[in-house]
């Protein structure tokens, strides 16, 4: 049963019908805002986004910039199984596998690139990963860039933090790089 709400608008009185006093009232409101913002621009809520960012809500379930997780010994969890690359609907992941010199069972990613300019932030790679190695929990929202090459996340970017944007998760990942450096 659709409920019908009948609105009884009161008829306009004379002053409202000639429209001019109402125009004056409206203009007064807009003018007040104009001068308030002209003399106190700091009060405008606009955030100049790529330069400034408002903090993300603490408990929000967000899909943000990817990272590659680490094992307890500091090696990357990724075993270069290509599951995420296969699942990716935007074809933005590029993996090249390599073998550890001292481990005949597992592979590791020699190249792990995510092209953020193609990524649709859908999280399918995270769903597909059998090793729980990739996550999208850095709470860094990828912004725009002036060059396409700047939108390319390499393995180092995924294991490290983006330059100038320290985060605990990213900083801890520096260990993984050091581990890999030690293997060479």
């Amino acid at each position, binding site marked *: 049963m659709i409920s019908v709400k009948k609105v009884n608008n009161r008829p306009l009185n004379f002053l409202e019908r000639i429209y001019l006093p109402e125009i004056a009232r409206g203009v007064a409101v807009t003018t007040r805002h104009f001068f308030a*913002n002209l003399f106190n621009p700091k009060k405008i809520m606009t955030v100049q986004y790529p330069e400034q960012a408002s903090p993300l809500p603490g408990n929000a379930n967000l899909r943000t910039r990817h990272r590659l997780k680490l094992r307890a010994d500091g090696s990357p969890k990724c075993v270069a199984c290509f599951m995420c690359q296969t699942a990716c609907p935007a074809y933005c992941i590029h993996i090249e596998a390599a073998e550890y010199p001292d481990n005949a069972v597992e592979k590791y990613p020699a190249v792990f690139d995510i092209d953020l300019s193609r990524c649709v932030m859908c999280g399918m790679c995270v769903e597909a990963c059998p090793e729980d190695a990739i996550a999208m929990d850095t709470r860094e929202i990828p912004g725009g860039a002036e060059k396409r090459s700047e939108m390319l996340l390499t393995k180092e970017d995924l294991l490290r933090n983006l330059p100038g944007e320290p985060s605990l998760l990213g900083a801890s990942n520096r260990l993984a790089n050091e581990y890999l450096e030690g293997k060479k």
Partner: protein
Amino acid sequence: MTGFFNAHQDLLIFSGAAALKVLVFMGGVMSFAALLTLAERKVSALMQDRVGPNRAAVFGFAFNGLFQPIADAIKMIFKEDFVPARAEKLLFTLAPAFALLPIMVLFAFIPFGDHVMVYGYRVDLQIAELPLGLFFVLALSGLAIYGTFLAGWASKNNFALLGALRGTAQMVSYEVALGLTLVGLLMIYGSAGLQDMVRAQGALLFGFVPAWGIVYQPFAFILFLTAAIAENKRTPFDLVEGESEIIGYFMEYSSMRFAAFMFAEFVEIILISMLAATLFFGGWQVPYLYDSGFILPGGKALALNHYLVAALQVGAFTVKTVFFSWALLIIRWTLPRFRFDQLMALCWKGLLPLALLNILITGAVLLALGKL
């Protein structure tokens, strides 16, 4: 050669002064129109608690968006200048000029100051002094309809044609009301020359009130402003062409031809502001400022240099123009849009009878005072 200069000295100086006035005044108007495109966005942004354009930068200096008009112009120039295959090529090309030109010509009749004496020569601060200036202004602003209609018709697009029909109907209707609102002023000042009307507004009423048009004809001012905004085709009367949702007469236009229509709109804002200032707010008159300086009603006098007086008058005219342009922007961003039937009803059932009533009352009062 010297003989030629001596023989035609007056003519040469007159032509030189006229050319200089055209360059300076029109240059000022054009730059102000370009700034208005930015002001429109900035004013609307500040009214709506936003920031507005602030990114266009030259060498890293944005100056809060001051370079936006330049960026817009560069973008417009480099856009594809598209002409529909079935369009009427000649008229399609001419229509933007028809929209822009009559409005630009009108600035020649606006007095932006009294006069300056330069080396004994009197230079009137008005490009062309015409005894019937006001009628010429109305006639030429009527010509601007051609721009609207030709644009819609020559694009051979049904929606553009409908937009042009709406626009023509609106402009023709409000042309009538616009003309009639000004008849009262003609009766009071007894002249149709804009400079004469401004000079007449320098008088004092009851010894202390400046005899500006708004004092004599406050009602006509409201009618004039309403009709002028409608003539300008901007909100609340922008159903000819509502940028975001209503397909208008220049929908087939792109690149600088489109820019010409938009620019004409902004130039018309300046024109309306200048006309409102000239007709109703004393033009270049500063209250109590005369050729010799300030003479206050109490009898106190402050002598001023001739050039300072001229500068003050031009400055006053500029301030009034800028104020009205700002007010028009505020009105444009405050009011919701009329429906087409409401628009026509407002003109024919509202403005027109009221304008006629205004003429009747003005005439009756003038007759009673024995001034007619």
